[in-house]
């Protein structure tokens, strides 16, 4: 089920909300948790019920492993905890690898060995990357003795709680379950409801109105055009850069808003990433919970920065390569991850040398690096990425017909093409790109707005209008980009 659908907004969410608090009101707290689990599994199964056993199996397996680890921690006997943990993580990675990377693996073996193995065409179960990573984090935390969960229902609730189930944020058990167990979370809190509705409406608007508008232009440039002019190529890449941000951060705003209705505060995932002044800064602001996961469960176990400068660079690069591959089974994601890995290594070397840079220049370089690397992230094939990037630097410049008689253009000094600017490039594309720059760079982000939210009438009118505009554009085809990862 999609957050941006009628069935979610007007049926699923109200029904889930009222029954949950009605049960809590009757002091049936265990039943309220069971109801939330049921609702979350229903939410998950709405897309395709055949993957319900998969997520339930994964939960049961990880709960069992987690319980064994916790008991071993206590009793200090039996199989070594490290072996159990390795077994647990390996099984999770095998599951993820099978569903997400098997066809990629077969295709590459076919190319490398000239083999002709048939692809399995496995459909990626929704949210598998997210619920697998969430559970790996749980196992590691259990191994470290930071969490202990002996109740299967509680554990299932932690993994399946529907606001975060499909596309994160990637959660820690210790930041979720105490909230569910708190007495305060069992009664309707209008402060949280109004802030949640505020955040939800902003997220819905970001997704339905802004991201989906950018999507049309990005798709047109990436998928439909054979050759792009200079301006078209930049419009295409910037459209995707903004589409991805508004899509994913919009989803996260909705997730945070919905969770808040149930008095659960999820960690933020975005903090104005396009304001970043360097690549490290960007990764502290973009998909924060994934960065946190990679730092805590990959970078630090690899040795972090404790084994000398060269190993630190190697670890950083490896983390970004894994981060790239986590997004999908394609060499394009690997290339994207590698580019970010190289950038983070260069940034660290720059820092080590004690060099500084003017802030405006730093922002300009960082933003453009991110914008260009998103081209690799979005492109289906290497050729598509090259097509866009080539046009971004060497594409013909479209000059309005009325300037065609100028001397400079007769000398072929510049790669130009004549035509109607208005006909070739949509004015609204550039207006929306300019507006996006303005709002993203000059204004507070949605989480900052939610933190300072007050229930004024102007906010009331603002969010009713946001919801009304968004609902007018709702349709069932617009899935979130991060559902693919």
């Amino acid at each position, binding site marked *: 089920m999609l957050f941006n659908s*009628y069935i979610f907004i007007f049926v699923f969410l109200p029904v889930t909300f009222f029954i949950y608090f009605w049960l809590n009101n009757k002091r049936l707290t265990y039943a309220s948790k069971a109801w939330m689990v049921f609702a979350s599994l229903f939410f998950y199964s709405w897309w395709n019920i055949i993957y319900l056993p998969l997520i339930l199996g994964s939960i049961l397996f990880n709960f069992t492993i987690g319980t064994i680890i916790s008991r071993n921690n206590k009793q200090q006997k039996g199989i070594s905890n490290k072996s159990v943990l390795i077994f647990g993580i390996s099984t999770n990675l095998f599951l993820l690898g099978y569903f997400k990377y098997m066809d990629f693996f077969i295709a590459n073996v076919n190319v490398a060995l000239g083999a002709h193995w048939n692809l399995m065409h496995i459909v990626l179960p929704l949210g598998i990357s997210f619920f697998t990573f969430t559970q790996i984090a749980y196992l590691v935390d259990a191994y470290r003795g930071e969490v202990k969960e002996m109740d299967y229902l509680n554990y299932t609730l932690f993994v399946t709680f529907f606001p975060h189930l499909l596309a994160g944020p990637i959660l820690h058990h210790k930041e979720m379950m105490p909230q569910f167990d708190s007495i305060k979370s069992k009664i309707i809190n209008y402060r949280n409801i109004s802030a949640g509705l505020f955040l939800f409406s902003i997220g819905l608007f970001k997704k339905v109105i802004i991201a989906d508008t950018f999507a049309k232009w990005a798709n047109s440039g990436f998928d439909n055009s054979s050759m792009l002019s200079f301006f078209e190529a930049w419009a295409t890449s910037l459209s995707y850069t903004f589409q991805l941000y508004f899509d994913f951060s919009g989803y996260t705003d909705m997730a945070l808003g919905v969770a808040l209705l149930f008095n659960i505060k999820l960690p933020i995932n975005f903090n104005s990433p396009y304001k970043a002044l360097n690549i490290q800064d960007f990764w502290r602001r973009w998909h924060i919970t994934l960065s946190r996961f990679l730092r805590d469960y990959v970078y630090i176990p690899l040795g972090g920065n404790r084994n000398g400068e060269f190993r630190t660079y190697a670890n950083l690069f490896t983390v970004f390569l894994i981060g790239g591959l986590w997004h999908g089974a394609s060499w394009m994601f690997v290339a994207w991850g590698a580019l970010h890995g190289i950038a983070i290594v260069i940034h660290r070397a720059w820092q080590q040398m004690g060099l500084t840079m003017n802030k405006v220049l730093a922002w300009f370089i960082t933003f453009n690096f991110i914008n260009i690397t998103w081209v690799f992230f979005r492109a289906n094939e290497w050729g598509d990425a090259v097509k866009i990037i080539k046009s971004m630097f060497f594409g013909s410049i479209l000059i309005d017909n009325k300037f065609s008689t100028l001397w400079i253009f007769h000398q072929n000094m510049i790669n130009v093409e004549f035509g109607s600017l208005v006909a070739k490039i949509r004015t609204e594309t550039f207006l929306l790109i300019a507006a996006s720059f303005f709002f993203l760079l000059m204004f507070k982000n949605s989480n900052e707005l939610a933190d300072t939210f007050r229930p004024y009438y102007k906010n*009331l009118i603002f969010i009713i209008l946001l919801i009304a505009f968004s609902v007018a554009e709702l349709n069932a085809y617009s899935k979130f980009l991060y559902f693919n990862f």
Partner: protein
Amino acid sequence: MLIVNFYILIFDNMKKINNKQFSIFTIFGVFAILAVAAIINTFDFSTQKNDVLRKYQFSKFVINKKEIDTVFIGDSSCGNAINANLFDDKTGLNSYNLALTGSFGIESDINMLKHSIKHFPKLQNVIFIHTLNIWGRDFSYTGFFDTLYGFSDLVYYNHLTDNNLVPEYLVYKTNPKEIAWLFGKNKIKNSIDINLDYNGQKTKKFSNGLITLSSIENYDEFNLANHKKLVYNELEKICKQNNLQCFYANGPILENIYTAENAKIDNLIKKINLLNKNIIFIPKVFIYPAKMIGDSEDHIDPNFKDKVTLDYIDILEKYGLKGKE
């Protein structure tokens, strides 16, 4: 200045309300907007061009000539190509041209056919005419719901699309755009040209040289979408169940487009031909030069409507349409 004062009046002087009021007012506000939209939709207050045409064509069911035995169902390529009165004169049949527009999709043909069967007890012939690129377009939910025959069809025809029709119907019914459409600038009182028995055409036409092919940036591809196959199958079922003689003919198209895209068009026609069971499919492509084309590449100029109607009668008779003596 007025705007600034208005802003201060509305926003700055407003007091803070409590969170409970805020939450309740938000939910109430959103539902109020949906309710108003639903009222506008239910009472069919909409005044967009497609609504005006739909109401005009549906009025033919109400003023119901009992002897109607033939109907033309299709899109604007049909509406602009077929003169029902001339068709009656030449064939001795009694027909109505019930063409809507391409926005309604082939899927609305199911509803138009059912309405026709209900209102015209002597119905024998049904002639579907659609522009060639309609086969690749998305399912038109609005078109299907705007012409809906009965609520049970929401369940019965659910298999036609990937999305569940009942929630889609709710989306359609409570779309806040209804409010904008009703009170917005694009209201149309009457777009119908009674002489044409269809929407009037714009002054810029291919025939007067004010439109050329190069000014058409993108025309749709000539594909066959899966859901269109299912829709066609349903049309065939209805034709068979009601012992109707049904024909499907392609709408007219600008010669230059066929020249540029003939391989794709011929391929599409081959694919449609394979779907055939009970509907008599006429594979001919009705190609006309720019001087006979009106305000769109598949709209016949009104001056040539009669000539084109005769072309269609010719072909239909060759494929078995029987006129009355």
